[in-house]
């Protein structure tokens, strides 16, 4: 751009994501100076199994860091800190003497630990460790994945107990390598990533030895738990040699931070393939009785940790892709808005995209997708509208669950992600939530959050107020729907949700 913001200094943020690794260089105003990105291979050894080659990922990270620095036209002297954000829960074990992974990383989507999780629930069920960890026993989380690797890679448990093996989520892997690897690399993780392992006690912020032994993870493999914003060490080698590595946050927590949701009750929702909504609940972990997860939002240095409630929707952007690829009703994702805008309403049709069951707040694996309320009047345009409304209603359900659990009403929803370019969806969201929906000016809130945390750690930004001052509203949608219509529509949606349940018989649901 024209105004010279290349005078520096800068912060580099690394986003080690599920499909790609990226590096973005930010200036002091939080503006993007340069971006570099590289995809990595998705490995599917069996149905339901998803792996990543951690060596490939580390090579890509080095490449995109170098790429972004070159594109920005700066040197390591201009970069004050490196921040890390990462795909959460993806699990890796490696040999600390050679730096070699002992197996591909098990990706968060990988469901191979389903049976193990059921077994670990014993007679209590999936909430066995919920009080301590905030999480239900589900295949996403890292602890059971570590156990699977120890059980299935030959000789690994012995090596682990001897102290030769290190465990980490991708933040730990990247930081260990950045800070020298076998040559003095630091083995750490941050509180947000640790809170996704099912091994950390949420209120003490320490590994829970009782749970570690119940799940079967030797504490010798575990990284040290640190805050999300502090200097873990300095980069050794590479284009950023000597630059402090100063933050780590799981991707959704990083987006919460990038959206500057620093006050209790502030929430953000990221609309991608799926949707993740997180609400800041202040300094106390709020137990959920409505199907949400309790997680750590962030912790800055030695300040008190900030907790969050999290609700996820499995199918949002992917429903639009389904309309394009499987149904062929649209040619591009953006066209859903054109089609949906050609009618005034949904024509009585409701679409519950429970393609792999219902997630928060229902958690019904026996549910499957339904389109209901069909009459001869309904056209493909009404279905397109129902598709967008499905995303908005599911957000409303999570927002309602958050209000029930936390007692805090949502005052405004900060949104990011690809689907925020859909104007009709954003307006519908505001109508259904009966609250303003606000889009910030930097769409890359995940990387921005990591950059912010790293910048705070090294004094690049003085405090969170300075970060708030950087936040800019790019657009705002305010509710236009009258209460009677909203209530009637919500009732119909909830009826449609009921129709999706119990589609699978109990034993089939258990097998899937």
């Amino acid at each position, binding site marked *: *751009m*024209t*105004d010279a*913001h290349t005078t520096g200094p800068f912060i580099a943020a690394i986003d080690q994501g599920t499909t790609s690794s990226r590096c973005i260089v930010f200036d002091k*105003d939080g*503006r*993007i100076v340069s971006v570099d990105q590289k995809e990595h291979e998705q490995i599917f050894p069996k149905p339901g199994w998803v792996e990543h080659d951690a060596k490939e990922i580390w090579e890509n990270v080095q490449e995109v860091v170098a790429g972004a620095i070159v594109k920005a036209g700066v040197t390591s002297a201009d970069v004050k800190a490196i921040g890390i954000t990462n795909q959460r829960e993806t699990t890796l074990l490696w040999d600390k003497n050679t730096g070699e992974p002992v197996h591909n990383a098990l990706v968060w989507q990988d469901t191979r630990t389903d049976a193990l999780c059921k077994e670990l629930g014993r007679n209590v069920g999936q909430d066995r460790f919920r009080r301590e960890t905030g999480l239900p026993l589900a295949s996403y989380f890292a602890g059971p994945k570590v156990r699977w690797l120890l059980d299935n890679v030959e000789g690994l448990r012995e090596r682990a107990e001897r102290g030769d093996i290190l465990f980490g989520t991708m933040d730990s892997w990247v930081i260990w390598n950045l800070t020298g690897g076998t040559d003095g690399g630091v083995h750490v993780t941050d509180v947000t990533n640790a809170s996704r392992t099912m091994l950390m006690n949420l209120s003490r912020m320490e590994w829970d030895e009782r749970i570690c032994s119940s799940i079967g993870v030797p504490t010798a493999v575990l990284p040290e738990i640190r805050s999300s914003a502090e200097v873990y060490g300095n980069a050794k080698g590479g284009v950023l040699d000597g630059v402090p590595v100063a933050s780590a946050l799981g991707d959704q927590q990083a987006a919460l931070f990038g959206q500057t949701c620093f006050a209790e009750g502030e929430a953000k929702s990221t609309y991608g393939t799926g949707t993740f909504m997180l609400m800041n609940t202040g300094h106390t972990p709020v137990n959920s009785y409505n199907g949400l997860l309790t997680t750590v939002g962030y912790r800055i240095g030695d300040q008190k940790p900030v907790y969050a409630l999290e609700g996820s929707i499995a199918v949002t952007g992917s429903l639009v892709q389904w309309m394009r690829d499987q149904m062929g009703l649209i*040619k*591009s*994702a*953006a*066209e*859903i*808005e*054109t089609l949906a805008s050609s009618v005034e309403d949904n024509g009585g049709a409701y679409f519950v995209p429970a393609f792999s069951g219902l997630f928060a707040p229902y958690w019904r694996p026996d549910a499957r997708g339904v389109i209901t309320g069909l009459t001869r009047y309904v056209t493909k345009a009404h279905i397109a509208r129902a598709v967008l409304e499905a995303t908005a209603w599911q957000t409303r359900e999570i927002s309602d669950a958050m209000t029930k659990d936390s007692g805090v009403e949502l005052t405004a929803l900060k949104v990011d992600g*690809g689907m*925020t*370019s*859909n*104007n009709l969806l954003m307006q519908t969201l505001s109508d259904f939530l009966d609250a303003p929906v606000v889009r910030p*000016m*930097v*769409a890359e809130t995940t990387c921005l959050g990591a950059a912010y945390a790293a910048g705070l750690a090294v004094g690049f930004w003085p405090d969170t107020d300075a970060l708030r001052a950087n936040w*800019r*509203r*790019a*657009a*705002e*949608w305010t509710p236009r729907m009258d209460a009677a219509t909203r209530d009637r529509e919500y009732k119909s949606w909830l009826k449609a949700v009921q129709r999706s349940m119990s589609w699978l018989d109990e034993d089939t649901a258990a097998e899937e």
Partner: protein
Amino acid sequence: MAKNIQSLERAAAMLRLLAGGERRLGLSDIASALGLAKGTAHGILRTLQHEGFVEQDPTSGRYQLGAELLRLGNSYLDVHELRARALVWTDDLARSSGESVHLGVLHQHGVLIVHHVFRPDDSRQVLEVGAMHPLHSTALGKVLCAYDPVAHSEVTEGERQSFTPRTVTGEQEFEALLDTVRARGWAADAEETWEGVAAVAAPVHDRRRMPVGAVAVTGAVERVRPGGELRPELITAVRDCARAVSRDLGANRF
């Protein structure tokens, strides 16, 4: 009746041939099917290939219909696609200029606002997506009139209303203004639509170099034109943004 152009007739016959039955044909098949010398057939195929109407399989050397034909078939650009592509660039433009940004397309004798980014000063602002702006007096509209022949004919046939004393309404004056726009590659609006409001806009082109819309920076006249002069860095910024969106839509660098 005027004599038809033989090479165009032959090119049309080739496209029909490639569209029927077998999908890929070699040069000699095409030449013999149409009763042409190989050299003649090759010359026409090469021209069609250059225009994207025909593609050659690199391994077999056989010819097939090109992607450009499909694009001709669905030629309009979805405005929501345009917005999705423009999102990051227009955000950055608003941020760097400190003013609001609009993206407009030609629609029913006016400019339809399809995307709006707020001025980044945290003041209360209302989303203007869906609003219609006039063609002849706004920076967005002038860019569309200068580059899009349909917009041009609409604006010259329609009535050009005077909104402020500065609105240009006379035909010759207006045409001269459009010439300047074409020569410079951008258009301005200095209180010609709304008192106190100034803007600068540049065209967005698609992959076929067709003008599909325009992007503008709009703000208070005293900030956009301090001392009566348009801030030159705004012109560069809005043109950079328009070029970036065009590139994302597949237009070549220009």
